[in-house]
């Protein structure tokens, strides 16, 4: 796997490209533009870039007004700070069902040294609960670029796109095109499926290699579209492999692990072991240290795979 630029760097470049071809695109930030990389857009299109200061509520409501007046508004800040505007997002954006795209950066524990105050691991759950909101967690820069193209060219409703700070390896082919509500099978297998997204996709591919050495033939499926969810894609791999692991840089209580478990418990119960944050805050440290500290590293995914694989497939027992 080759190293890549961070997803936020890709986002910044992509915004500039879009700015040239879409005159109705506007961008808002809350004094973090040099970190979210929206500053690149701001330099080239100052008339369509609004730095609202450290005033997220003002930023989100102004974005709603711009969208109501016919603009496509991209709103960026750190994921954790957008959450203070949950209610503005709910009332002014989602209830109006308008063209505001929340592309946030620095989500999850990979913010690293900044510590618990900045490491949000609840945001996917919070945003997924909103009617009219769709939620995407890209795995690499190729997917990020494709998601932004998709949002600009094909959509006019609210989206939440979760980006991170760190560089992560490229896992998708150059020809990859994001499709809403559709999983991507990155590696096929017959004994176990790892459903994963974001930074955990690269780790999951490495874990699958390890599991192969232990004779567990493991599929890796990228579930970047958390909402809408590819239910049939999840069910078909549960049927095919009979054992499931989920892996996410997020709380296991209201993110990918929860969504996958919901689908399988309703449609096709198989053993599921979830890897992700427990009911806890993060802490300062290097991001690679934090994955081990919170039992979310490659070896933890491998352990989860072995645990799931050794469990009896309850569905087969029932039938």
């Amino acid at each position, binding site marked *: 796997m080759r190293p890549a630029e961070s997803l936020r760097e890709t986002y910044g470049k992509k915004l500039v490209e879009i700015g040239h071809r879409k005159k109705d695109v506007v961008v808002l930030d809350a004094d973090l533009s040099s970190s979210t990389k929206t500053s690149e857009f701001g330099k080239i299109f100052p008339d369509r870039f609004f730095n609202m*200061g450290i*005033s997220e509520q003002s930023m989100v409501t102004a974005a709603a*007004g711009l969208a109501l007046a016919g603009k496509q508004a991209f709103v960026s800040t750190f994921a954790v700070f957008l959450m203070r505007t949950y209610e503005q997002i709910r009332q002014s954006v989602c209830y*109006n069902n308008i063209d505001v795209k929340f592309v946030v950066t620095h989500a999850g524990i990979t913010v690293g040294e900044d510590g618990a105050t900045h490491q949000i691991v609840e945001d996917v759950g919070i945003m997924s609960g909103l009617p009219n909101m769709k939620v995407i967690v890209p795995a690499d820069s190729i997917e990020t670029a494709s998601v932004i193209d998709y949002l600009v060219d094909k959509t006019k409703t609210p989206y939440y796109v979760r980006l991170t700070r760190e560089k992560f390896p490229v896992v998708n082919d150059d020809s990859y095109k994001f499709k809403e509500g559709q999983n991507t099978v990155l590696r096929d297998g017959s004994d176990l499926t790892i459903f994963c997204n974001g930074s955990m996709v690269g780790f999951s591919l490495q874990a699958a290699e390890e599991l192969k050495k232990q004779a567990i033939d493991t599929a890796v499926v990228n579930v970047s579209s958390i909402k809408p969810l590819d239910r049939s894609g999840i069910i078909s791999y549960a049927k095919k492999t009979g054992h499931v692991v989920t892996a996410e840089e997020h709380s296991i209580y209201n993110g990918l692990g929860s969504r996958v478990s919901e689908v399988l418990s309703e449609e096709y119960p198989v053993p599921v072991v979830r890897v992700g944050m427990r009911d806890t805050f993060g802490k300062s440290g290097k991001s690679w240290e934090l994955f081990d500290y919170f039992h979310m590293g490659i070896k933890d995914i491998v352990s989860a795979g072995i645990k799931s694989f050794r469990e009896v497939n309850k569905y087969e027992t029932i039938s």
Partner: protein
Amino acid sequence: MEKSMPDKDFKGMDRETLEKIAKKARSLIIKMVYSAKSGHPGGSLSIIDVLTYLYFNEMNVDPSDQNLSSRDRFIMSKGHASPALYSILALRGYFPSELLMDFRKINSKLEGHVHRGVPGVETSTGSLGQGLGIGVGMALAAKMDHNPYRVYVVLGDGEIEEGNVWESLMAGSKYGLNNLVAILDKNGVQLDGFTRDIMPMGNVAEKVKAFGWEVREFNGHDFDDIKSAFDFARSVKDRPVFLIANTVKGKGVSYMENNYKYHGSPPANDEEYERALREIEGI
């Protein structure tokens, strides 16, 4: 440059005619909330004169061409004053007045708080503090597009206790939005009691001025004074304008006036209901 809308016949309407329309709207407000057995009459009655002026004498809007890009925008940030906005929209011709009696009922579009699905409504509101920010966004869009429309936002007295309002005041000032007018319905009463007791705001005019807005106070129940306030707002060229309408909560119904209990309650019984309608007719 977008073409400006031609003046409608309503422009230049005399004081007596405006008063008659406001009286009709007040009756409709009472009928709506009594029919729904719920809703917010107090803050609807306090702002209805300003709304009457806006829709019949100030704003460039046309119910027969509701999507015209150069129409003026109105935002009822205090979304609980839905009876006021819905009744004035009906009287202005956006939809039949009979629909008002379905307010808050299961098969009606007339949601309890202002809803964008209703003809003439620009944005849903109901959670306080958000409308001014939306107005800032609309005014920014007008500037970008060189579109001459103006944006009017009605804020509640208690509503300005929300931090979002002050954040948006900063933004309006930063961008010099001379196409944005905020109107404060300063009736002095909020849900739990008098505003001065719940959260004393001190000298609001001075505070808003310090945030970089032009400020003017006026009597929100006197159409001559209302007119001069909005004419003044048009004359300001370099910054947004914050108009403070001094009003009476529940204006026109004696037992509702300055009574916080009628912030969110309809007349209690037939007797109160008929008394309210009689008093409104007698104004």
